[in-house]
């Protein structure tokens, strides 16, 4: 497979969530592409819709959420048009996902061995002995200490880091082309975080996997993503290569995120900046730009019209959703 062939194409994805007779937009007009060997990072605060996006891509949105619009083309095939049963053939085999709370995400009444074996059983045609061998292979790939003991254990007996390795093992068991990682390191200690990130990076390189890495932590995503998508209030506000983003943020929100990174603490500022205010709540719809109330660059137009996501004039490979992107103009329409 050509290293840069496109695995996943998400087009105009929108998810609504219904509560007491009214529907609220959880995410809207989400579009992105992931290529083989590429990591796309999705960054945003909690409530920005990043997890919803990942679940929508997998087709795992359930009531009270429902899919409003969009297509998710995996190797050209629209996953969202498939029935649940058809889609389940891909899940766990070609597209896998790992989650934020690894211990909660594993079934407490089955052993580790049983849970990983299950993936191998339903998606492959390996015989029992071969599956047992593959189990051990996977455990050593993810660097699990005390292999045999771990296999016989239950999730609650293992640490968060170990359980995350288990989840990763389950996810890569059938050599997926795409891995979606939803805040995989957020719940872990800093040192373990590092190890998991290194592991993911290595697996990706070895298998030429595409990866979507979701996090709220810009410093984490900078270590692992090739492209970054910044989400705010259910929409994409900036989309560009990682190096570009850290060189110059275009959207005021992105700039604020960068400024609030601990490493950007400077004696000049004399304090760490945090972004004042909060995201609009579910259901709150402003007439203008959703970030406007917290934007220090906001002008009159910003509270009256909604900016669309469009290419940045000076560098069309970047997109931004802003009338007045920092460092220049953009050519998007209203």
């Amino acid at each position: 497979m050509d290293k840069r062939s496109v695995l996943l194409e998400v087009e105009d994805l929108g998810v609504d969530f219904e509560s007491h007779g009214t529907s609220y937009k959880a995410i809207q007009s989400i579009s992105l592409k992931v290529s083989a060997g590429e990591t796309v990072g999705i960054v945003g605060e909690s409530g920005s819709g990043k997890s919803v996006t990942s679940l929508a891509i997998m087709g795992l949105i359930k009531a009270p959420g429902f899919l409003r619009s969009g297509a998710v083309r995996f190797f050209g095939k629209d996953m969202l048009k498939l029935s649940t049963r058809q889609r389940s053939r891909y899940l766990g085999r070609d597209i896998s996902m790992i989650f934020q709370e690894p211990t909660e995400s594993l079934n407490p009444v089955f052993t580790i061995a049983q849970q990983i074996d299950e993936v191998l059983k339903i998606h492959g045609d390996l015989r029992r002995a071969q599956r047992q061998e593959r189990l051990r292979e996977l455990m050593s790939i993810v660097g699990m200490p005390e292999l045999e003991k771990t296999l016989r254990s239950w999730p609650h007996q293992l640490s968060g880091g170990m359980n995350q390795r288990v989840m990763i093992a389950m996810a890569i068991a059938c050599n997926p082309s795409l891995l979606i990682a939803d805040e995989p390191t957020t719940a872990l200690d800093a040192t373990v975080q590092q190890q998991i990130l290194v592991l993911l990076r290595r697996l990706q390189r070895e298998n030429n996997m595409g990866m979507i890495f979701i996090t709220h932590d810009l410093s984490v995503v900078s270590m692992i993503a090739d492209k970054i998508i910044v989400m705010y209030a259910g929409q994409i506000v900036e989309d560009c290569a990682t190096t570009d983003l850290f060189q110059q943020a275009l959207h005021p929100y992105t700039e604020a995120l960068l400024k609030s990174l601990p490493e950007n603490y400077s004696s000049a500022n004399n304090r760490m900046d945090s972004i004042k205010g909060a995201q609009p709540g579910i259901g709150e719809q402003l007439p203008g730009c959703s970030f406007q109330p917290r934007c220090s660059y906001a002008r009159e137009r910003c509270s009256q019209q909604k900016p669309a996501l469009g290419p940045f004039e000076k560098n069309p490979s970047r997109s931004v959703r802003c009338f007045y992107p920092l460092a220049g103009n953009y050519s998007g329409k209203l």
Partner: protein
Amino acid sequence: MMKEIRLSESLVTLTPRQEVWYKFRTNRSAMLALIVLLLLIAAAIFAPLIATHGPYEQFTDTLLAPPYPSAESKAGFLLGTDDLGRDMFSRLLYGARYSLFLGLAIVAFSLIGGVMTGAIAGMKRGLTETVILRLMDIMLAIPAILLAIVIVAILGASLVNAALAVSIVLFPHFVRLTRAAVISEMGREYVLASQLDGSKGWRLFFPTILPNISAPLIVQSTLSFSNAILDIAALGFLGLGAQPPVPEWGSLLSSSRELIEVAPWTVTLPGLAILVTVLASNILGDGLRDALDPKVDA
């Protein structure tokens, strides 16, 4: 029909108490149950005004008349008569007084006694707590009706004794609930603050702790109310509670058991009355629990 998102309304914040009431109010079946119960209580209170006849009056020329829609029903006897010519409707109405008021009295007794005992257990801990807990466990090991029957057997068969017996049977539930709730509250800051202020014992419990544990107690009370009604009726049915001719619903079933073939309405109606009352109480209890529990998502 989904409506699109409305333009930003001001986000209304409700106090916890308002939120509870709101959740309850929008629960249609719970509201319906509450109305039914209130109607029943009203019917019981105003029985003398609503009843068409006296509950003990016998009309010897209208024995075993069926209820209204039937061809052989007699005028004025809405729900028929029994084997002594007594009006079913009136007897049921007066019977409501026994079930409902006894139920309330029983719950009140068990609640007050149980809460105080549970509070003692939860606050004193140590030996006192262990003794109380063990005693409650033993009482709970004896099946409810059996315990009630034995107590009535000892005290003698009467309505009052039956009520007392049922109070005793329901007592351990309140004790355990209160004790558990008290123990979990004791570590909280507001309790410590109060203790530093000098409150202890009942001065600590009643104004400070009790309001914060009232939610599960309220739910348990409705549950106990249901059980009280069923247990009193059971004892009445077994002849160990209300004695004839008192029109308590359970004992009505006992005396009409033999009439089951000739006058089935004398059997179906009192039971139906019990069912409706208990059902309403249970639905109410469920609704209260859903409204009061922040996590529940039934």
